[in-house]
């Protein structure tokens, strides 16, 4: 195994790219995909530390994170579809029903 700093740095890079994606894109689906990227970055960290300490607990948590990602994708995409049916848009800044 390489020094764990490499994994941490990779994870951090992916995490930041994901955060920038969530903050700057207008399309809700791309924002959801960026969130997937963030979760993925966390998984790299978990697995790297699991290898570092020689147990499987980190990997178990990674599995839970993936479960969570699946649930989030299912519900999130369901909401997007429902919204698209009603308003014909998938852009975040046009989703302003609660603003007035």
């Amino acid at each position, binding site marked *: *195994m*390489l*020094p*764990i*700093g*490499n*994994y941490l740095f*990779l994870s951090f890079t*992916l*995490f*930041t*790219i*994901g*955060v*920038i*994606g969530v*903050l*700057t*894109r*207008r*399309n809700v*689906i*791309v924002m959801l*995909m*960026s969130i*997937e*990227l963030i979760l*993925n970055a966390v*998984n*790299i960290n978990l*697995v790297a530390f699991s*290898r*570092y*300490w*020689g147990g*499987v607990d980190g*990997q*178990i948590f*990674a*599995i*839970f994170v*993936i*479960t*969570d*990602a*699946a*649930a*989030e*994708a*299912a*519900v999130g*995409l*369901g909401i*997007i*579809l*429902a919204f698209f049916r009603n308003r014909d848009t*998938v*852009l*975040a*800044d046009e989703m302003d029903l609660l603003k007035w």
Partner: protein
Amino acid sequence: MLNAAVFYFFAVLAVASAIMMVTRRHIVHGAVYLITALLATAGIFLQLQAEFLFVVQIILYVGGIMVLFVFVIMLVNLDLSLRLVQFNRQRFVAGVLALVLGAQVLGAFWVSRTPIGRGPAAAVSPQNTEAIGQALFGRYMVPFEIASILLLVAMIGAVVMGKRRI
């Protein structure tokens, strides 16, 4: 040596495709790049000798969740939205936030200052799948059941959202 080469290959692939995913105008291309990034992550799991997670990542993430994404993208694909501005006006905020995050992580590296080197002799069990199975159905039994309930709730939620008339 080979280990390092594998790691750097997948790391560069993951970061490059993540950047491409965030910047592409076309959302289907974005999805393809995200799939590449996820596959590269799977490769890194393999390099970390977590072969069960490698397979789970591919089956669940790439073969399941991303298929759902692509499916929805095709359902809501609007040629119109391609011609619109793809980024909002938060670029400045995002940049600052990324800088702050970066500074924080680097600070954490600096403060901890323990040699981030090779770990305590990490003995990897050759039976990775068995070890995970034992842990999941042993010590992590309750979280596992809760996760299954979470999935059930998400499934019902998705079905309700997918109905044309609630």
